[in-house]
């Protein structure tokens, strides 16, 4: 979604002169379209993410809308307290962009994995957290959040080509989009791993037992009503996320189920230990997040072999 993000940001910056772009010295072969079009609105803050978020706070107070870019852990975790005390406390429109959600940087190892950012930022009041599932969603993700008065965290994947079958770039204002209507089981996914959930849905449909598959793009504030509508008409929900089990989509769904008293059993699929570096397909399979594993999980829930 890197190229899609930069293209959408250029479009946004054309319409809104308040938009600035700051990077923590990352974005090789990505930002050229922005830099060429708006050289005076681009700043490389150096490898200094805390100061970058702090400066964005000062810029936003004066009326700018600074986009602040780094790889997920360096965008969301390293400067977390700056985010908390700056844009969140002051309710300022700083846009934090985390690149490489999940295992996108698989061979770079745990330091580069984006598997705990949602848990870290989801508690921050007023922070809009958007986690698109495919590059086609990115323009809508940026344009619909442009007027959000407080801070936004965009959790992006690297891949610009991968698509989630059935999503077609849609983005419901409620933050949840159904890509396949089925029955009995709801596969609920966030981020680019949603493609695996959709492909598992295709496979199960071919076997005559299609689950519903939906993509959750808005992770905070929790899209409670949209989730309740889906959860209330399924007996099982399987949450699918390239993120630690604690604090991510599965936790969020558990909160909705419990607080709304819904009779739907939750099965969470996510990361449950510190992963070693490996290729993304291997890591997805390791944590049961690939299409085969997800299909098997659904078959087991239906009592099928």
């Amino acid at each position: 979604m890197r190229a899609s993000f930069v293209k959408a940001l250029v479009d946004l910056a054309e319409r809104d002169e308040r938009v600035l772009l700051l990077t923590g010295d990352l974005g090789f072969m990505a930002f050229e379209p922005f830099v060429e079009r708006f050289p005076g609105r681009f700043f490389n803050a150096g490898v200094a993410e805390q100061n970058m978020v702090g400066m964005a706070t000062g810029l936003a107070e004066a009326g700018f809308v600074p986009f602040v870019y780094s790889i997920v852990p360096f965008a969301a975790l390293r400067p977390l307290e700056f985010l908390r005390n700056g844009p969140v406390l002051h309710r300022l429109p700083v846009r934090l962009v985390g690149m490489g959600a999940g295992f996108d940087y698989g061979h770079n190892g745990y330091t580069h994995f984006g598997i705990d950012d949602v848990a870290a930022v989801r508690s921050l009041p007023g922070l809009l957290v958007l986690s698109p599932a495919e590059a086609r969603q990115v323009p809508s993700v940026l344009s619909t959040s442009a007027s959000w008065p407080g801070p936004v965290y965009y959790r992006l994947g690297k891949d610009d080509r991968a698509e989630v079958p059935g999503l077609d770039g849609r983005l419901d204002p409620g933050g949840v989009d159904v890509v396949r209507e089925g029955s009995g089981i709801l596969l609920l996914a966030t981020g680019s791993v949603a493609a695996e959930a959709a492909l598992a849905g295709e496979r199960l449909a071919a076997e005559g037992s299609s689950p519903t598959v939906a993509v959750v793009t808005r992770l905070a504030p929790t899209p409670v009503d949209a989730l309740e509508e889906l959860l209330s008409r399924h007996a099982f929900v399987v949450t699918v996320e390239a993120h630690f089990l604690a604090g991510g989509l599965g936790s969020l769904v558990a909160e909705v189920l419990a607080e709304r008293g819904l009779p739907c059993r939750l099965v969470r699929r996510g990361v449950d230990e510190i992963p070693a570096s490996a290729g993304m397909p291997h890591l997805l399979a390791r944590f049961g997040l690939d299409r085969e594993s997800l299909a098997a999980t659904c078959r087991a829930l239906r009592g099928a072999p």
Partner: protein
Amino acid sequence: MSAVHDARRIRRTVLDASYRAHVGHIGSCLSVSEILATLYRDVLQGAAPDDPSRDRFVMSKGHAALALYAALRLRGWLADGEIETFCGPRGGLGVHPEPGTAGVDFGTGSLGQGLSYATGAALAARLQGSARRAFVLASDAECNEGALWEAVMFAAHHRLSALVAIVDVNGQQALGYTKDVLDLEPLGPRFTAFGWDVVEVDGHDTVALKEALSRPASPGGAPRVVLARTIFGKGVSFMERRVAWHYLPMTAEQYAAAVAEVGGEEPSP
């Protein structure tokens, strides 16, 4: 009326309000009284706390916010009644400045963040073609924070001459003297090496402070740091240079003795 007089009034408010609320951080407030008096009487430009063209000010050493509140009151931006809410049971002004309080451009409390806010504010002024400046008051121990030096590097690299940092060099921190905890010296040469224009002043000399804080931007565009050499607890002899007064509240006897030294001619709420 003068900044010297204002500093005395700030000290008196600090003593009165912290005694009434039974809280500490008194010594830190006393060391910055002349700095804040000079800033708010003679340096900071701006007709009102919401004037977009006002100079920005970040009280990065947020634990001395009571002295800031006293200065804002002298400026006419805080009412007497608001000072009375300091550390009150139902909220109001807190130990650290919070956004939403008139005159507080940025809430602070976590050390090492304010210089980044001010750096962003100075960059914003440049981008908007505004002559406004961004001032930040940091503590010396705050320079322990690595993130502060990230901002130091950025501001120097981008020659943000609208940025003026003041470091309250009182030589103390929560648990000891800075030279014993993490020695910061030579602080001036350190900032110079990072590309800043360094001015060292007696932080209790309002004339010297005004001159240092009002100087035109350095010709090369370097950001400026004013190292204000101060005495922790200045003005109350039994608090001066005593680490304990970072946290201690005053007893009735101590309050009476402190007021007698600072001066009682200026009753404050």
